[in-house]
């Protein structure tokens, strides 16, 4: 898989999403329960707003001094006998990983917790090299078994599937014969996966944060599979986006607190580990540790007007409150990063050619901005994208003309008055019983679903009333 999960037009994808009542039901009930859980976990922390501010400050500080912290991280990892590799492009990143695998003559690979490996199309590259690769997050495993169905949520990749569908996948692909209870399904997957862990030559994980002064990475999971992936195989390769770094454990603790509460409404998750090259004499942990730091377009975002998007800690909270995501689901975004943060970063990483609709798929309700634990002004970034898209003349000529006209009209009382004089008689032509039932192209979609009352006659406008009244008072 790559950043792009679906090549169809945005319209087709949303129609698909809207036409999938099952998925919408799953998404909206997940949103409703996560929202309540998140709120109570956030309140329990005391002054949530202060915590958010702290989270924001930590992320901004780290981004501002990213060079320094990445340097420190590299030194510390190497000092401990690990390897760090800075990959400029996705090809470099997955190429490096393939080279290690080839060098180790590894055949079986287990994998956990990584979106950035999707971005760099690592699975594809490794499978081409003849490896057997197993996703070990339960959600990801289900998707893999379902012929690599794309993820639809940052934290809950298989959110769009219910237990019946999961049972069907397990039955068809694995010969599962049990019922559809989540416990039994999970237990079954665990048995299969346990074997995979034991057999694996290489474990590949993502990284929630790299801790610069320790030369280690932080993994946050509820299933413990990230830890097993890192601990059992002889070789551990961790992959991170170059911005996912904190100075010390202290900042990590703050961000983990924000992350877990925002993502799943828990104070902390079941497993929070800090993993690095194992020191000599340690009995567990990999013999060989590699950290791949992926740029793939991020340095272009750094310091730009979209800098704040790099603050993201991938908690998924913005998806859990987004009313648009609620109705179209994650697949409609056509990217491994869905929802509001996806609409911001996907066009940055993948370009406007493929993703220019995403920034417009928002009512700018700002629920995402409100909830983001590190205070990314998501809705403002969407407006910035829109401005760029307009500036690059990627909107239709007709729209540009309309907006130019509207801009003039809404800035001049004289012109607006004229329009007002025209609006009511014009609307009479297309209305019935004072309601506009069918409209010109521009507002057709709106009127298809709603009744619009006619604009008032100019002499009935508010300003006319005010004028008349002032006149009366003057007499």
């Amino acid at each position: 898989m790559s950043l792009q999960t679906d090549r169809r037009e945005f319209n087709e994808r949303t129609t698909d999403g809207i036409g999938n009542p099952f998925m919408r039901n799953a998404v909206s009930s997940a949103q409703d329960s996560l929202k309540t859980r998140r709120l109570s976990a956030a309140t329990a922390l005391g002054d949530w707003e202060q915590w958010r501010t702290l989270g924001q400050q930590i992320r901004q500080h780290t981004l501002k001094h990213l060079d320094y912290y990445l340097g420190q991280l590299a030194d510390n990892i190497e000092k401990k006998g690990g390897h760090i590799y800075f990959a400029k492009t996705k090809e470099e990143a997955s190429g490096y990983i393939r080279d290690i695998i080839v060098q180790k003559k590894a055949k079986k690979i287990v994998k956990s917790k990584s979106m950035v490996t999707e971005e760099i199309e690592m699975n594809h590259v490794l499978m081409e090299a003849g490896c057997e690769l197993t996703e070990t997050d339960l959600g990801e495993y289900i998707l893999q078994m379902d012929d690599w169905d794309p993820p639809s949520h940052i934290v809950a990749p298989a959110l769009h599937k219910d237990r019946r569908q999961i049972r069907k996948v397990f039955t068809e692909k694995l010969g599962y014969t049990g019922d559809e209870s989540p416990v039994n399904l999970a237990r079954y997957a665990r048995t299969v996966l346990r074997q995979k862990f034991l057999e694996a030559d290489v474990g590949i994980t993502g990284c929630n944060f790299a801790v610069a002064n320790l030369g280690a990475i932080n993994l946050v999971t509820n299933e413990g599979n990230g830890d097993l992936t890192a601990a059992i195989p002889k070789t551990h390769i961790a992959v991170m986006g170059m911005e996912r770094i904190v100075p010390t454990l202290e900042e990590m603790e703050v961000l983990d607190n924000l992350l877990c509460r925002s993502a799943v409404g828990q104070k902390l998750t079941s497993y929070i580990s800090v993993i690095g090259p194992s020191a000599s004499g340690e009995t567990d942990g990999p013999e060989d540790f590699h950290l791949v730091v992926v740029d793939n377009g991020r340095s272009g975002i750094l310091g730009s007007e979209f800098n704040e998007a790099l603050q993201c800690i991938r908690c998924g909270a913005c998806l859990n409150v987004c009313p648009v995501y609620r109705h179209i689901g994650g697949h409609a975004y056509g990217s491994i990063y869905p929802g509001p943060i996806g609409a911001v970063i996907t066009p940055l990483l993948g370009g406007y050619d493929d993703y220019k609709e995403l920034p417009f798929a928002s009512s700018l309700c700002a629920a995402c901005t409100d909830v983001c634990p590190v205070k990314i002004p998501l809705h403002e970034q969407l407006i910035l994208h829109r401005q760029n898209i307009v500036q690059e003349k990627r909107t239709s000529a007709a729209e540009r003309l309309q907006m130019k006209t509207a801009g003039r009209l809404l800035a001049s009382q004289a012109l607006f008055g004229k329009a007002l004089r025209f609006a009511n008689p014009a609307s009479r032509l297309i209305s019935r019983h004072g309601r506009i039932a069918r409209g010109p192209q521009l507002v057709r979609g709106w009127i298809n679903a709603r009744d619009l009352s006619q604009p008032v006659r100019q002499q009935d406008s508010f300003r006319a009333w005010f004028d008349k009244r002032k006149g009366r008072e003057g007499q």
Partner: protein
Amino acid sequence: MKVSIFSTCVVDLMTPNVGIAMVQVLERLGCEIDFPASQVCCGQPTYNSGYLEDSKLAMKNMMRAFEHSDYVVGPSGSCIAMFHEYPKIFKGDPQWELKAVALKEKAYEFTQFIVRVLGITDVGASLEGTATYHRSCHMTRLLGERETPFQLLEQVQGLQMEPLKNSDNCCGFGGTFSVKMPDISEQMVNEKCGCVTETGADILISADMGCLLNIGGRLSRKGEPVKIMHIAEVLNHHNPAAKKEEAGHEPANG
């Protein structure tokens, strides 16, 4: 207290009754009202669509219109929130930045002005019925005003308020969003209508006409007998002066 009314283009063009109600309530509360005639629109439709330069014209027009006002009060949390964006938009512009800050500082949404500036929560209104309130996203989140409408509605005699499920979820209006992505918007407004009818209320109240036109338009198309009212109309209800002065047309939604 001298107050300049910002009627908003929607109220001026579609629902003048709302503007009239606002003026009458404020006058009853002792304000002296004027209406700077050169005002038109806050620039939001074009700004939110990404047409920054085209929208600056409208913004400058507004800064000029209200230059000499003490307070600017409007019936829309969304448009007032737009004023609050001006300083960011004109940051570094020597001619306009200070004017933008000045406008932001004196601009209030209608209920916010009554409660926070005038210090009043009981305006002496009464209205028999059961109502529910739609929080508009821009008023709640961008302007940061969550409480004042409820403080005022609590004091309206005879009015019973029912809580609205998922009240923080957007109704799908979003200005040009509802025109540009009508399919998604329709799903959102449908869900909102469901929540509204579930309350059993016969009136839907809000402080933003955009949302009310959107939800009201959908309710009407579905044949749901829920009446929409702007909060200014509610607060002006049973005001003896109101009858006399009303302009001769239907309220926001029949």
